[in-house]
């Protein structure tokens, strides 16, 4: 046994090398798979659906209301929780049962990487962690190099269309958008604010960004919004300026970097062309005129990217 300090600031005693791990958040389950320690994962939640193999693990109930009996019956030597998604009550209950818990916290993309590294150290695979996070960091740096000179796009991130739920300014999603050279226009302190059309019309986003299982689903969501009375008041709706990203972006897991790259490619296609087009020197203007040519030209590529991603349960994606 050894003592570690988790991201709740609690000192917890955990085994030297945890062998029976229960994950109580989809993002943690994904991280364990990314680190290659899935064989030691003995249980996860109903919402842990990525990768597909995670669905075969023993289910212990929901994120907010896991079944303590099921967890205890698995005899875990470590239960992983997130500070944002799980309840403090759950952690306290596991404490009284003598089951060690370790809490993580990821308020921005950088913390997603540091949390991944901390988990790798905790589970005795520090090299896997450093190669994974090193790779992710390199991809983020490359992206930054490409987008540095381009002014950010003002975008509305849409988690859910009915009711319309966006993201607050302090969420890791807003941070992920920054890294994709977009600004989330919603200035709310709540994590998942509900928005009205009136507010959105006032803010006039240049782009709507949909989180969806695949591109067709995102397109359907856009069409449904565009058909609603009044929505054509938005320039972005009239000019069909929308992007679709994988729902991975609303889980603080390593997959978020792919979602950031995907979003950047859709918002700033010019930055990703090998040779800049002769008629767009220097800084290209992001909002293209009606018709939205760049979108359709890269649609096939984006569809290929997105179809790899399974449909996921949006409501409880965290």
């Amino acid at each position, binding site marked *: 046994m050894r003592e570690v300090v988790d991201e709740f600031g609690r000192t917890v005693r955990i085994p030297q090398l945890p062998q029976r791990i229960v994950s109580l958040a989809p993002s943690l389950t994904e991280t364990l798979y990314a680190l290659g320690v899935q064989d030691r994962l003995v249980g996860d939640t*109903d919402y842990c659906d990525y990768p597909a193999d995670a669905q075969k693990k023993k*289910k*212990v*109930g*929901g994120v*907010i*209301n896991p*079944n*303590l*009996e*099921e967890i*205890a*019956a698995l005899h875990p030597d470590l239960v992983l929780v997130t*500070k*944002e998604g*799980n*309840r*403090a*009550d*759950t952690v*306290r*209950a596991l404490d*009284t*049962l003598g089951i060690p818990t370790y809490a993580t916290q990821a308020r921005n993309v950088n913390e997603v990487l540091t949390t991944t590294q901390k988990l790798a150290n905790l589970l005795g695979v520090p090299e896997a962690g450093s190669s994974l996070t090193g790779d992710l960091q390199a991809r983020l740096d490359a992206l930054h190099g490409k987008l540095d000179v381009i002014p950010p796009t003002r975008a509305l991130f849409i988690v859910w269309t009915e009711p319309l739920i966006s993201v607050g300014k302090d969420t890791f999603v807003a941070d992920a958008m920054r890294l994709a050279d977009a600004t989330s226009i919603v200035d709310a*302190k*709540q*994590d*998942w604010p*509900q928005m009205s059309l009136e507010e959105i019309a006032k803010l006039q986003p240049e782009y709507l960004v949909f989180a969806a299982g695949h591109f067709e689903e995102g397109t359907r969501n856009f069409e449904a919004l565009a058909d609603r009375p009044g929505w054509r008041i938005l320039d972005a709706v009239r000019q069909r300026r929308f992007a679709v990203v994988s729902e991975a972006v609303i889980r603080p897991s390593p997959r978020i970097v792919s979602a950031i790259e995907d979003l950047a490619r859709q918002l700033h296609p010019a930055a990703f062309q090998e040779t800049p087009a002769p008629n767009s020197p220097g800084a290209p203007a992001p909002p293209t005129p009606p018709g939205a040519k760049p979108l359709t030209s890269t649609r096939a590529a984006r569809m290929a990217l997105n179809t790899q991603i399974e449909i996921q349960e949006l409501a409880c994606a965290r």
Partner: protein
Amino acid sequence: MRPLTLARLLMRCGILVAILFAVVVIALKLGAVQVSLYGLGKDLLGVLLRRSNTLSSDYGMIVLDIRLPRILLGIVVGASLSVAGASFQALLRNPLADPYVLGVSSGAALGAIVALVIEGHMNLTPELAGVITPVGAFIGAALTIAAVYVLGRREGQIDSNTLLLGGIITTSFLSAVIMFLMTTLPSNNLRGTAFWLMGDLSTPQPRSLLYLLILGFLAAAGAIYTTSSDLNLLLAGEKEAMHLGVDVPRVRIVVYLAASILTGLAVAASGVIGYVGLLVPHVMRLIFGSDHRMLLPAAALGGAIALVIADTLARTVASPTDLPVGAMTAMAGAPLFIYLLRRRLA
């Protein structure tokens, strides 16, 4: 009906205790993880006879550390709500009164949420933090019953229909305030509150709160029991009871405060669980009559039995997912409430 003697009282309570015991044994066996009753009994006997000092580790933790505390919580909460309901019904002379219908549970919930918000803004020691929620719930419950009482009075007397309407309006107002707080406050403070609001016994409570709950129940239910003869006379009406020598204002204060304590503690531990306080006293009154010396203990035991059954269903029907127990009690309770309401109006 034959007069109530101590022997008869004890015998009837004995029968209810036996039923409660049987329900607890069944509830201990049922759950997400299969436990053999025979194996458990043998193990328990072994521990009692000091042949071994632990239960089989396979389900010892599940039965003793998870299921049993939850069942105990269900017993105390069910008994508290039911006694509170029986007292409100007596005092307000309205068989449809109960902490949930009168808005007292919502008041307690709002008090508990406000306490949680205050707790989030101050750095309290864990002991103090554990007590602030039940205190907030009690204050919320007491203020709400006072407000509903004022709303329900017409020309110096409690008017049943005005009172029920007052309770319904108060509930919807308090729910709106709760909604407002939950949508405007940063979500971290109130994580899981929506789940708790629907009535939830799945979260193990800290030992200190469990002890507080048991002590509070014994004190408050005891205080109400001392007024049971007065409550019997109050059935004839406040003025009539006054003529018969009942100190009505004193009884009123004792019962309101004690019932607020019961409701506040139950809500702090388990959220808003409806209809237990309404239906159980009713059923007990049908079986045992309306003598409060018998009705109050019967309501306590009956409430415990009802809530343990409801929670066992909540644990098992959609296993491994837990349903909120409040959903179970409302599903059974609301139709019965309508039935009783219509029968009364007929």
